[in-house]
C-alpha cells in the first residue's frame, strides 16, 4: 500500500526523534548490554521505518522484499551478538590458534 502524505510526515518526525534519542543515550548512558540492546532496537526500528514507509518494500516481489528486510536487521543483530559473544567470535575468526 502506498503511504499517505501524513504517514510520510509522521515517519520522518519519528525518525528524527529516534535519532536524537539514540545519540543522547550514547552520550549519557554507561556502556553495557542494556545500552547495546537499546541502540540495536532503535537502529532496527529506524531501518524498518525507512524500508517499509519510504522504500515501500511491502509492495515488492518476495525476492526483493526479504533480502532488504534481512539487510535492515543485519547490523542490529550483529551488535547484540558481538556484545554477548565477542571473545568466542574473535576465536572463531582468528587465523592462528592459541
Amino acid at each position, binding site marked *: 500500500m*502506498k503511504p499517505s502524505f501524513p504517514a510520510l510526515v509522521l515517519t520522518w518526525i519519528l525518525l528524527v526523534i529516534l535519532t536524537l534519542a539514540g*545519540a543522547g543515550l550514547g552520550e549519557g548512558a554507561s556502556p553495557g548490554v542494556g545500552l547495546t540492546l537499546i541502540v540495536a532496537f532503535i537502529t532496527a526500528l529506524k*531501518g524498518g521505518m525507512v524500508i517499509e514507509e*519510504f522504500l515501500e518494500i511491502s*509492495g515488492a516481489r518476495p525476492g*526483493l522484499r526479504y533480502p532488504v528486510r534481512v539487510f535492515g536487521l543485519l*547490523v542490529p543483530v550483529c*551488535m547484540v*551478538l558481538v556484545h554477548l559473544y565477542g571473545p568466542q567470535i574473535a576465536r572463531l575468526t582468528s587465523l592462528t590458534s592459541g
Partner: protein
Amino acid sequence: MLDSQSVPVYTAEMVTPESRDTGIPGNWAIWVGILAEMTEFALMFFVYFIARAHHPEAFHQGPAKLWTLAGIVNTLVMLTSSFLVASAIHAIRADRARTALTWLVLALVTALGYPIMKVLEFRWNLAEGLDGGGDVFQLAYYYLTFNHLVHVIWGLLGMVWVMTRLATGAYSATNHRGLVAFASYWHATDLIWLMIFPLFYVLP
C-alpha cells in the same frame, strides 16, 4: 467466431509502465545496483564486527574521538532528504509534476549538506590527529564512511538527472518508473547510513 467488437483494444495510453505491476519498485537495473550496494556494505559490516570482536577496547573508545554533532547532522540530512524524495513520489502519483519538482529541489539542497558536512568533519578529524593511519577503529571508520560518501555523490548526480527529466515533462502520474528507481536508490543509501551512524558515533 470472434467479431471485431468483442476483442479488447489496448492503446499505448492504457498500457503504461505504471499500470504493469511488476513487483519491482522502479526497475530491475536499479535493483541490481541496490542489491550490489547492500552486499558490499554487508561485507564491510562483517569486517567491522570481526574487528570489533578482536579489538573491543579500540571500539569502546572510538565514538568519543569523533565529532558526534557531525554524525547527528548527517543523519538528519539523510533522513530529511529521503522524506523529501518520498514526498516527490507522492506528488507525481497525483500528477502534480511542479510540486514534485519543488520537493526534489528541497531534497537536493538538503542532501548537499551531506558532502559539505563530511568535508568539515574530515578537516576536524585531521586537526585532531584522526587520520587513516590510526588504530583499527579509525581504519574502519574511514573505510565505511568514505565509501558511503561515494554512494551519496552518485545519488546526488542521479537526483540532478531525475530533476532534469521531471522539469522537461518526462514523468507523469502514469509514467514515473525512472523517478521511483532513483528514489529506491536514495532510500537504500539512507538506510545504509542509518546502520553506519550508531556503529561509529553512538555505540561505545
